[in-house]
């Protein structure tokens, strides 16, 4: 833990963007998330850390109802976005996902051109009025995702033809092109080299001025570098949640301490 610049960064208190209360998730009989309460602040980067299989991805997918696509998955409890229950029967999950964007753990670009990958979201949501505006959105999204220089000459090449790390940045560009209010990122940097990682982290920090970002990561350094708040999950429960500096320097729970010092995981 040599990189704790976080302490110097001022954490202004923000209003709650997402509040989760008593959330339980079941895959069939298996109890994957056990009664989790979390407040995710607006204009803040929140990191989810924890050993593999502890339910970070599962909980993240609850926040934009991507779990709806899994037949055996059942979510109970209360998750509110800006005070509105996102599991309310009246809520259209499509509208929700336009507000809560997601970058998946495995890069999954569409087998279409790079341009079409990024332009797809704005197109279906009618965010742009003409081709010039769309071009503009595509370019800024690709620039923000730190991939513009690599692909600007081959926007019509298939997105699936990029390297794994480039694909992941393309997926990030695709997610921010729809300007969501919350961006969920599931290990966005696991396939990236240190330079691209640094660029993505810079992007995350930039995004913080407009969005609230939730990032799952296995890298303590990354969590410490980019996030203001950190949640530590273990075996489906939220063990500890607080300001990143506090979690990494003075964890309250012994499990948190042993995880960040590398003893469980």
């Amino acid at each position, binding site marked *: 833990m040599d990189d704790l610049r976080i302490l110097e960064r001022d954490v202004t208190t923000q209003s709650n963007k997402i509040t989760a209360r008593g959330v339980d998730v079941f895959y069939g009989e298996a109890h994957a998330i056990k009664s989790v309460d979390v407040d995710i602040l607006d204009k803040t980067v929140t990191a989810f850390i924890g050993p593999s299989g502890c339910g970070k991805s599962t909980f993240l997918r609850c926040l*934009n109802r*991507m779990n709806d*696509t899994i*037949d055996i998955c059942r979510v109970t409890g209360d998750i509110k976005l800006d005070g509105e229950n996102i599991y309310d029967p009246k809520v259209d999950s*499509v*509208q929700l*996902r*336009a507000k809560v*964007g*997601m970058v*998946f753990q*495995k890069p*999954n*670009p*569409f*087998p279409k051109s790079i341009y079409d990958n990024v332009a*797809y*979201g704005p197109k*279906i*949501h009618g965010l742009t009025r003409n081709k010039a505006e769309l071009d503009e959105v595509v370019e800024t999204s690709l620039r923000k995702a730190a991939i513009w220089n690599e692909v600007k000459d081959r926007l019509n090449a*298939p997105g*699936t*033809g990029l390297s794994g790390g480039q694909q992941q940045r393309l*997926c990030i560009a*695709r*997610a921010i*092109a*729809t300007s969501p209010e919350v961006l969920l990122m599931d290990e966005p940097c696991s396939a990236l080299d240190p330079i691209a990682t640094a660029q993505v982290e810079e992007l995350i920090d930039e995004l913080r001025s407009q969005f609230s970002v939730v990032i799952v990561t296995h890298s303590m350094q990354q969590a410490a570098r980019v996030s203001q708040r950190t949640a530590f999950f273990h075996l489906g429960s939220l063990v500890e949640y607080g300001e990143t500096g506090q979690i990494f320097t003075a964890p309250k729970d012994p499990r948190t301490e042993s995880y960040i010092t590398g003893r469980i995981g």
Partner: protein
Amino acid sequence: MTDATAAAAASTAPAPRKGSLLVQDARTRKRNAAESRFKAYGLAAIAVGVIALVILVTSILGNGTSAFRQSYIALNVELPEAKLDKSGTRDLEVMKKVTTLTYGPLLAKGLQDAVDSLGIEIEGLTKKDVSGLISQEAAAQLRDRVLADPALVGQTVQITVLASGRIDGYYKGRTTLASAELDSNVSPAQLKLADALKQKGLLTTRFNAAFLTAPDASDQRPEAAGLGVAILGSAYMMIVVLVLALPIGVAASIYLEEFAPKNRWTDLIEVNISNLAAVPSIVFGILGLAIFINFAGLRASAPIVGGLVLTLMTLPTIIISTRAALKSVPPSIRDAALGVGASKMQAVFHHVLPLAAPGILTGTIIGLAQALGETAPLLLIGMVAFVREYPAAYSATDGLFGEPSTALPVQVYNWTQRADPAFFERASGAIIVLLVFLLIMNAVAIILRRRFERRW
């Protein structure tokens, strides 16, 4: 792992193997032998398949290619007004009353004149023998020509007519001088005359386009029989199948695969569809007979009925292959689309369906090819009938595709049932046509596949 367990594991681990890499041990030898045995079995299996295919193709080509060649006789025929238009008015209605019975002798006379003027003399050749060289179809051909152009009456016209089936068979090795001795339909003298005419250039054997365009012909005139009606009937049925089975099948599969909840009912439907695919095709024929002809009152032998029956038969094939194609699209693509806020339908139509398209197309074309070659259900709904008239795509009384027709495989079956060996040749020819259509469909499938295929 703690240090204690690591130590325990190390003590039980097997000792490292020793021995030269250049010498195979017994186990490796055994494994390699098993592998080469298996490769040999595979090669043998492929060889058997290839040999069977080669035998099949050569026998069909050997028997059938001659159907695409036919013997014709060129004649000059007088068309006396006294016989064809007694009134002299060239009134079509009156002229139509003159039947082919009047035209036949004109042709016979024309040929006899040619034989006389060329000075061909053959022992034992009667007048009846000479006229027997000409196909019975020729009189109808001449009559049609005169009715199409009444001004021809009173003139002498040149006409090329079909030679009779036995004479044609002489040039294809079916009839020989020896077999003609025993055959009441053809005499050796006729064969000699045919040779003489051939020498003079009056009798020629050339490509027979009529085989693909002419309708079927009766038992006595195999030389005139063609596949025209059968090809058209099959084409109409394929249109019906494509227009109905593709959208219904694809829509059903998309619903079942992407939208339907997974419960007992959808399981039941799934099992039923798989079972339907295995139902013998003749059962669909009985179903078609009961529903479309007896209950709905559609006309027997109509391409629409055949098409509907074949649609029922093809649907399970299309549904199964479409579902397999949809299943093979990685779920991450659906997640990606849903993740940027696409609706389920947008995800399916913008991303999943294009990726599944090659598989769907292949399934559809396999289904169509199956339907094209299907015979049994068509027999039951009367498509085996003898049809001389071309069916219309639309008729005022029978609606779309409602006029009686026949189909390629049924025509094959029909011709193999007939006595004259000339029909056997035509049946083989029809099989070649059927195979060519199947090859074309497969080629289209491959081309479309190539075009739509994308990596992901």
